[in-house]
């Protein structure tokens, strides 16, 4: 059913810390690996050893430069489905293949219903839909629905593959519908934001901005000395004569 369910109480999603992401692609490849055997398998690769390799990936790492000079930054920017609250990718779907789960807000594709019209990919402003040309169906990030509820995994491992693997800990998973959750508090504390809020999709996933502070209090840092004049060495050496410390 592509009409949206009543706003779910639980809104599972990701919080991605752009201040910490080093752009290593671990999350992207681990996502590919997990999902290659998961509910959306295979993530087909075309011409894998050829001149124009192209495959299905649920998570891709972009990079940007923002600002100029000393204020400028390079920002690595992972992007996967944001599990929007108002996902037009769902409402445009003519078959009901694309749906948003009432219980946790996860947006999924039921491949058995998908006719591969690709309309949802045009409706997604975030480029999160992945058409599997070989299978003729649309695929996308499942928020690792086959991990987060998987009773065959130890409870601590029931998090998305991309979150479990991120070496710097730039990815967080949780219930963004619950203002008291760890992820919600992180968003509140760090000024997490929505991508393209003007389009009104109300993404569940949030991004944390790069920090602006230097992270170190240097308020009382030693004032710089005047540039050396002649005799500096002698003066210093003399001054250090009494620096005696026993071994």
């Amino acid at each position, binding site marked *: 059913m592509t009409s949206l369910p009543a706003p779910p109480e639980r809104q599972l999603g990701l919080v991605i810390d752009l*201040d*910490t*992401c*080093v*752009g*290593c*692609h671990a999350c992207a*490849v681990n996502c*590919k*690996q997990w999902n290659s*055997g*998961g509910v*959306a*398998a*295979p993530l*087909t*690769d*075309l*011409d*894998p*050893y*050829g*001149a*124009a*390799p*192209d*495959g299905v990936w649920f998570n891709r790492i972009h990079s940007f430069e923002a600002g100029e000079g000393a204020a400028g*930054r*390079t920002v690595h920017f992972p992007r996967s489905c944001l599990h929007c609250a108002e996902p037009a990718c769902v409402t445009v779907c003519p078959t009901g293949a694309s749906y948003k*789960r009432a*219980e946790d807000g996860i947006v999924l594709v039921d491949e058995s219903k998908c006719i591969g019209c690709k309309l949802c990919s045009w409706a997604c402003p975030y480029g999160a839909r992945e058409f599997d040309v*070989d299978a003729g169906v649309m695929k996308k990030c499942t928020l690792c629905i*086959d991990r987060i509820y*998987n009773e*065959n*995994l130890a409870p*601590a491992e029931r998090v998305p593959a991309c979150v*479990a*693997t991120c*070496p710097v*800990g*730039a990815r967080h998973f949780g219930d963004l519908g619950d203002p008291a959750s760890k992820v919600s508090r992180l968003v509140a504390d760090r000024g997490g934001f929505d991508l393209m809020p003007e389009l009104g999709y109300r993404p569940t996933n949030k991004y944390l901005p790069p*920090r602006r*502070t230097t992270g*170190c209090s*240097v308020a*009382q840092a*030693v004032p*710089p000395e005047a*540039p*050396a004049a002649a005799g500096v*060495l002698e003066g210093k*050496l003399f*001054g*250090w*004569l009494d*620096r*005696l*410390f026993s*071994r």
Partner: protein
Amino acid sequence: MSPSRVDTSPVVSDSVATTTCYMCACRCGIRVHQRDGKLRYIEGNPHHPVNHGVLCGKGSAGIMKQMSPAKLRKPLLRVGERGKADFREIEWDEALAIAAGWLGRIRERDPKGLAFFTGRDQSQALTGWWAQAFGTINYAAHGGFCSVNMAAAGMYSLSGGFWEFGEPDFEHTRYFMMFGVAEDHASNPIKIGLGMLKQRGAKFVSVNPVRTGYSAIADEWVGVRPGTDGLFIFALIRELLLADQVDFAYLARYTNAPWLVIDEPGAADHGLFARDDAGHPLCWDGAKDAPADALAAGVTPALVGNYRLPSGRRAVPAFQLLAARCLDSAYAPEVVAPQIGIAAETIRRLAAEMAEVAFRQEVVLEVPWTDWAGRRHERMIGRPVSFHAMRGISAHSNGFHTCRALHVLQMLLGAIDCPGGFRYKPPYPKTCPPAGKPAHPAAPGKALAGPPLGYPLGPEDLLVDAAGRPLRLDKAYSWEAPLAAHGLMHMVIANAVRGDPYPIDTLFLFMANMSWNSAMNAEGTAAMLTARHADGSYKIPHIIYADAFFSEMVAYADLILPDTTYLERHDCISLLDRPISTADAAADSIRRPVLAPDRDVRPFQDVLLDLGYRLRLPGMVAGDGRPAYPGGFADYMVNHQRRPGIGMLAGWRGPNGGSSGRGAPNPEQLQRYIEHDCFWLEELPPAARYFKHANKDYLDYAVAMGFLDHAEPVVLQLYLEPLQKFRLAAEGHGKVVPPPEHRERIRRYFDPLPIWYRPFEEAAVGGDDFPLHAVTQRPMIMYHAWDSQNAWLRQIISQNRLYVSRQFAERHGIADDQWVWIESHHGRIKGQVRLMAGVNPDTVWTWNAIAKRSGAWNLDPKAPEATRGFLLNHVIAELLPEQAGGYRYANCDPVTGQAAWYDLRVRLRPCAAEDIGTAVAAPLSVPPGLPKRPQTLRYGAWFRDAGQVP
């Protein structure tokens, strides 16, 4: 809609095996899930000390390494010309008989006719031992073209250091400065550490000409001009000295800063330490105003002053010499700023920040500890400023001294192995300066007296003949590279082909793509590998190569010994090599086969032991004449003893597996490892975790484990006396002196204190002709040449761009996406431009080792790697431009022989449209037996079908 539309609880796997990743040298712990005999998922082992459950992109793509159509399948014997990949498949018996035939003859005639060099393997504990048994001095691993500057500067200065010998105290540091690191060997630990810094809000400064990766998340990016870090460090030191922001107590206690240096210019011992009759260095006890044994506990040494020894000779504390050097106005921020490309105020501020954190934001751990002299200290006080550095500073011809300068800065801050500073990982620190000297050549048929690699402490330790000519093929430990502790692998082919210093019979390579991405002058190297004498014979008569994949080097070998993949074999990550210890624990680990090979390949270590047996090498033949290790490498890992009780693995030794470090071989050892996730780890007691160089508990532990022979404190070498010995030799003192042509060079670069000089290529051809520095960076997602065969990873980068600063491009009319010739004094190559702001304006850079020779790795000859990618190695010369006398030194650091990859200077010229594309050589044909490349990969489709809810 109902949740039952998707199976949220599919079965993941029917078997899980732990082992160790080897998609790179970081050695993370992994859990390999299989289902119905197929690889389902490889994940990080949450209990593993290296990665704590995380896995990088490469590690996450292990399945595709196993699926690679480039895997070699059977031994190959060359039938056509070299360089054409024209082979026939042969059986292992024939392959081993051929190899044993070639090698046996060499060993009987002159063992150094075998040049045995290994690349990114982690088997040096075995391969070095094998070379020693074979009797060739011509052995080394990749360190010479990798980071021997870093290693040697660390070993000689601290007996430890960056690379794999230590790590920043990420838990406590408040100020972390990283020099020239794109990725490094500790891929995951560094990332985990940076994550910790971010969480704690510690400041992270990255000194790097390029702002990507780690530098992208730094709180401050210091975009230095390549090769000038030494100047930058000198300027920081100068500021700290001027402001008295130096840990004098630390210097007095733990370093040789107070040791007295003889100050008698012209004397044969000028610049050496004044010593007492026992050979102990002297200091000036300021409390007693008299000379004293500098190693004694309780002395109160002066750090400055001009002293006269009882003998009447003059001497000054080493610190005074350092201060005099560093306070020179040549290192004033204003003076160095334009050279470094960083504003003087920034340099001042950074020095002030460092001082602030080191001296006013101390970290205090309430952990009592006992120092080497048995004195109890109530707490551990740390200077929470830490550093890490890698090839950005080491891969320059001034890298050794730059690395030294950084260690000196750490000593001045008192930030070595203290809470919040840089920390050693056991078994480091060892003795300092390091022990163990390179072995001299052996008689025919005999083993070397010791390991082929070591650390010379003076001219008499060099491997040179009476005329001062090199004994080693790569000229390591000669006057051209005296402290070449890792050899000069990058010079082996060029020297062998030129017969300089001599020709060889067989080049035996393991896991090194020497015709391509680890070659300087890649095209020239390919030509050398195929060069012939007038009689038509090859100048390098035999080339044996052990690779697991169809790399570029395979095409140039005569005999291919195909290896297994990391999931198919035993490996040993030994404390004798580069272990996986953390600063808090000694640890080692193994790899074990989790898959059976689907082709006729053998683990190289097994093959090496088999060859050793066939050659009757000592240690490889049992008393009864049968193989000493019939069980192959797994057998060796357990039963080989380097010294009584000390073997490859430290865990579960002794009859019941009850001892660690020392103990008799335990037949159950591997089983114990497997039961413990394939690693052994022993935590240090809290009291032994810091100040290891001077911590009694630690030193005693190190002796018990066999890391150290005596529980003596390790004194940090601010002043490096061995260098002065070389310098004195260059001035004509002593028995072993350099030939005249090398004297000036030795005199200049063997300064016992750090120095800075312009990198050689810049000094020779820099300036307006070649206005740009060109460097490479490791992509986090690719390991050297390995991963273009990986269907997943190559999708991320299959073409490397030349990144050019917007500022430079604007001035020179270069546009985004444009193609340019990248021209050096040596040659030119084409590349496509990508503009960026976050790069030093005098620098261009690209990703390392993305480009592939057309046809290699069983890729489509039209693959972007071959048609649009480019290797800077094509424009890097292996020799420096001619010296005054016409001699061309290797393109190396003059102290260690480290390959100076990042000295490269280039200019850019726009390319005509028809020039687009980079393929530099004709496509290789694919060797027999390799499969056809699939057009479509549907990996894993079957798991889902199996997992469908009924």
